[in-house]
């Protein structure tokens, strides 16, 4: 354990060291775009949970503006799929997961450069069609006969959270489908193929034109922590670290809170 931490520390030091090097070599070039820490350049590849799509896209644009000469590339998907891709050697600098458990599969495989930091929390809501035609007021209403409900698969964080919330409430629910990420579950509500889906509040908030969100008390028992980490095999560790720092900064917090995330 100690050794692991030491290694992680070393990796961080190396990352910063490299960042320093980058600074030295580029100091002669006229790249100082006015912002404080423009030591970072190049492409930053970020693998992020599907539920972060909108907020991270905004953050990416702001980050690029703050660090002239950088480009942020995103790969949004279900956290578990991303973790598998990373563990199979996919080239990424940063991983932001929708659950600590999924993050652990990456860090325990030795693919994190240091420990992951929780940056936001997210809560589940019941997404229903606009105007809530089926009059759904809570989890118990989802078991009404003839009602079609979509959940995320247990394997992905939104599914695990849904399972926890359902268990906490004692509601026995048979969904019609187990979707592979939260966006897919929400799409089924938007298309009208299901009457309700358990999704994150942030996802429902993005789609207020098509869906309404019904809050339910049991969601407090299934709050998801979102951890973020710079990856060990990052091609651009300095850029990755700068992006993580940006997510954790006040600017980052503003964007994430506006999207409906809660502070950790």
């Amino acid at each position: 354990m100690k050794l692991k931490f030491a290694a992680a520390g070393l990796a961080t030091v190396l990352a910063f060291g490299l960042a320093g090097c980058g600074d030295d070599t580029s100091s002669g070039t006229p790249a100082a775009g006015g912002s404080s820490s423009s030591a970072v350049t190049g492409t930053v590849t970020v693998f992020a949970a599907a539920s972060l799509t909108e907020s991270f896209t905004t953050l990416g644009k702001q980050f690029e503006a703050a660090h002239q000469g950088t480009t942020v590339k995103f790969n949004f998907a279900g956290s578990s799929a991303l973790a598998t891709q990373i563990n199979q050697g996919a080239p990424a600098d940063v991983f932001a997961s929708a659950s600590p458990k999924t993050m652990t599969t990456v860090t325990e495989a030795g693919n994190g450069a240091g420990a992951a930091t929780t940056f936001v929390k997210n809560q589940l809501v019941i997404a229903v069609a606009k105007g809530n035609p089926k009059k759904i007021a809570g989890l118990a209403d989802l078991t009404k006969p003839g009602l079609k409900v979509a959940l995320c698969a247990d394997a992905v964080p939104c599914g695990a959270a849904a399972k926890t919330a359902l268990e906490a409430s004692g509601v026995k629910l048979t969904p019609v489908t187990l979707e592979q990420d939260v966006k897919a579950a929400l799409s089924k509500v938007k298309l009208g193929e299901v009457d309700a889906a358990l999704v994150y509040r942030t996802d429902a908030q993005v789609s207020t034109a098509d869906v309404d969100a019904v809050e339910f008390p049991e969601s407090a028992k299934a709050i998801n922590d979102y951890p973020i980490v710079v990856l060990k095999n990052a091609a651009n560790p300095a850029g990755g670290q700068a992006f993580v720092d940006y997510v954790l900064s006040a600017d980052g917090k503003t964007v994430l809170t506006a999207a409906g995330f809660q502070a950790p």
Partner: protein
Amino acid sequence: MTTAPAVVPRRSGTAARVPVALLVPAIGGLIFLVLPLAGLLWRTPWATLPQRLAEPEVREALKLSLLTASLATLLCLFLGVPLAWLLARVDFPGRRLVRALITVPLVLPPVVGGIALLLALGRRGLLGSWLDSTFGVTLPFTTTGVVIAEAFVAMPFLVISVEGALRGADTRFEEAAATLGATRWTTFTHVTLPLVAPGIAAGGVLCWARALGEFGATITFAGNYPGITQTMPLAVYQTMESGDLDGAVVLSLLLLAVSVTILAALRDRWLTAP
């Protein structure tokens, strides 16, 4: 399509005369196609294979896959053979356009196919809303939905194969039957069908194999629920998503073994050119 029987000697001395310029890329192509399969075998956890295959979820998904692919093939045969006949034997305006439309599912990304199916047959879809309000029938999230998604993607394979066979078949037998007073239907059932039976079988096998591997349209249109809509490809994806790479490899291998066995068993009989 088919030419006169070839009289070229097939075996003796052919290898010696193969130009290197062809042989090298040919072997490259073979390696390119086979290497990923080798990767699958290389990564297979052989020790735990039997116990993983015995898991009820695996059996359930395999059973559902075999059932839906077979039903989809039957549906394709029922609808596709007459369609192929129409394209091959009847000269109607817009035939080229129809032929082009039929091949669209071949090139369409399967997810797009799934969305298109939802918009047509979903609960709010073009035809689906009528099915729902009139008969109370909804197709998404049902095993029927899986069959429809698979048939949508696989049918072009059947139609193209059968149409090719029909165009290659000698029409003199049909003409003879017609001059002897047979109706078009009798000619079709007694002359045309037996004549192109190998082509139909070949198309059916291709169609079945494609249906068995269908993923995108199924997960989009039919959803994913074990025992009802979760076919093998969906089970592979879900297992992979849960971080269980070994499990995903085992399922992939099983699916591969089933497809290769069927294709290899039927290939010599039907899939080779006459």
